[in-house]
């Protein structure tokens, strides 16, 4: 679909700078906080190598400079190297976002030759037991070997650990692990409640005290380690009074392409009803980004309702996250209710309070692992109703 005579972009819409290529939804892990769509298993269609290369060319031509290969587990695709090579040739900065499963020395060496710039490796915890429990796999030792390989081949490395009730108290040990691995960045990513994270929210939600302790530990290490490792730790938005500037604004810098070719303004956007996401297999990327209803729906601020419309901070946080607004209020055009100005902010406070008073234990309500079988239970069922029903 490459169009070599690309029309000039409308002056008021900036080009996409970040392309996230979710090349497959297949994944050997079964993480309980995964943001992938619950019904991912329903649609197994994946773009071909040539289609992906074409997407890369179109996005680069429009101005995208950062490229993430993600999924699912991108290493499941045996043509990943070919895509990396193409991306590097086009001038992208290429990031591989991986669980590490499938990253053999042969592949990692080949990717280096082809120009892969950086690898982000995920761990679920500093302990083997919790890592293996939360991912429902025996992968801790394997991941540890991959971490060594990444450094052996001299890649800059981000260690990513998703945080929640079960590992927030291990933050000190997680940082020690990152120091031992000699990583450049440690991303302590508090769980965001989308997809599988949302259905498991009651069990994963930490207490405020846990968060405060963890933040204090992070700050101690930051002072001690200085510039040696950059540690990213952001307090989860449920505990805040203002929403995150989600995606830096809808259709502003970020463009995700899902495994089947749907183009998304945010990785969780498929959870929103009433939006038809164009597919890169039959629509040029330029048209998708600048002209499609999906990308224009929440672009800018004309779509906003009160309290956002008259808010002095509307161009700072863009009213927060559309997917969260929908999941928690039933209307994606509402203010993200983590904002204290939202009339539904109290609902969020209740959710946090419940975690505080009487945490839901795994014994009461088992964690739902991201498996194909569990995913099929969500096939063709709107997510919100299903979340309320499934226990």
């Amino acid at each position, binding site marked *: 679909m490459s169009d070599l005579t690309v029309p000039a972009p409308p002056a008021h819409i900036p*080009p996409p*700078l970040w392309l996230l290529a979710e090349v497959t939804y297949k994944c050997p892990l079964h993480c309980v906080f995964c943001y992938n769509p619950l019904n991912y298993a329903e649609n197994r269609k994946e773009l071909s190598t040539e289609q992906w290369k074409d997407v890369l060319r179109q996005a680069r031509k*429009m*101005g995208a*400079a*950062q490229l*993430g290969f993600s999924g699912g587990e991108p290493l499941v695709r045996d043509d990943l190297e070919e895509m990396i090579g193409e991306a590097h040739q086009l*001038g992208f*900065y290429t*990031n591989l976002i991986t669980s590490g499963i499938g990253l053999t020395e042969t592949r990692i060496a080949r990717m280096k030759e082809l120009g892969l*710039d*950086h690898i*982000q490796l995920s761990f679920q915890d500093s302990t083997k037991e919790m890592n293996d429990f939360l991912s429902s796999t025996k992968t801790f030792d394997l991941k540890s070997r991959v971490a060594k390989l990444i450094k052996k081949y001299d890649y*800059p*490395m*981000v260690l990513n650990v998703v945080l929640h009730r079960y590992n927030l108290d291990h933050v000190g040990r997680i940082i020690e692990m990152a120091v031992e691995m000699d990583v*450049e*960045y440690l991303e302590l990513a508090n769980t965001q409640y989308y997809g599988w994270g949302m259905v498991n929210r009651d069990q994963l939600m930490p207490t405020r005290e846990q968060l405060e302790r963890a933040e204090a530990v992070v700050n101690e290490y930051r002072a001690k380690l200085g*510039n040696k490792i*950059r540690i990213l730790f952001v307090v989860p938005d449920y505990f805040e009074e203002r929403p995150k500037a989600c995606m830096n604004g809808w259709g502003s810098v970020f463009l995700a392409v899902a495994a089947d070719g749907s183009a998304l303004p945010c990785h969780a956007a498929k959870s929103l009803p009433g939006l038809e996401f164009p597919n890169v297999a039959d629509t040029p990327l330029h048209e998708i980004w600048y002209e499609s209803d999906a990308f224009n729906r929440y672009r800018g601020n004309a779509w906003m309702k009160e309290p956002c419309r008259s808010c002095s901070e509307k161009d700072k946080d863009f009213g927060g996250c559309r997917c969260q607004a929908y999941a928690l209020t039933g209307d994606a055009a509402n203010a993200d209710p983590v904002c204290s100005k939202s009339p539904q902010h109290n609902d969020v406070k209740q959710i946090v309070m419940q975690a505080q008073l009487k945490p839901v234990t795994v014994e009461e309500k088992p964690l739902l692992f991201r498996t194909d079988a569990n995913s099929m239970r969500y096939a063709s069922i709107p997510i919100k109703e299903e979340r309320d029903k499934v226990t």
Partner: protein
Amino acid sequence: MTMDIAATPKLARLFRMQWEEAQGAYVLLYPEGMVKLNQSAGEILKRCDGVRDVTAIVADIEQSFGAAGLEPEVMSFLDIATERGWIV
């Protein structure tokens, strides 16, 4: 912390610098991030090749832009760039 005038700064291993036509600017690319550089930052950083010292960088910029007395400005930017880990 002030940059030594005899130092030969170079871009840190974590960063890649390139011209981006769509943004009309030099950018620094690093794991999952990008910094858009203003014109003077771009002009200074592209001369940080690990060979030229600060004196030579200043002289080259002054010559390219037909200006004089740019040393304080260059030094102050190099300090910021060091602090942010862009150069070593």
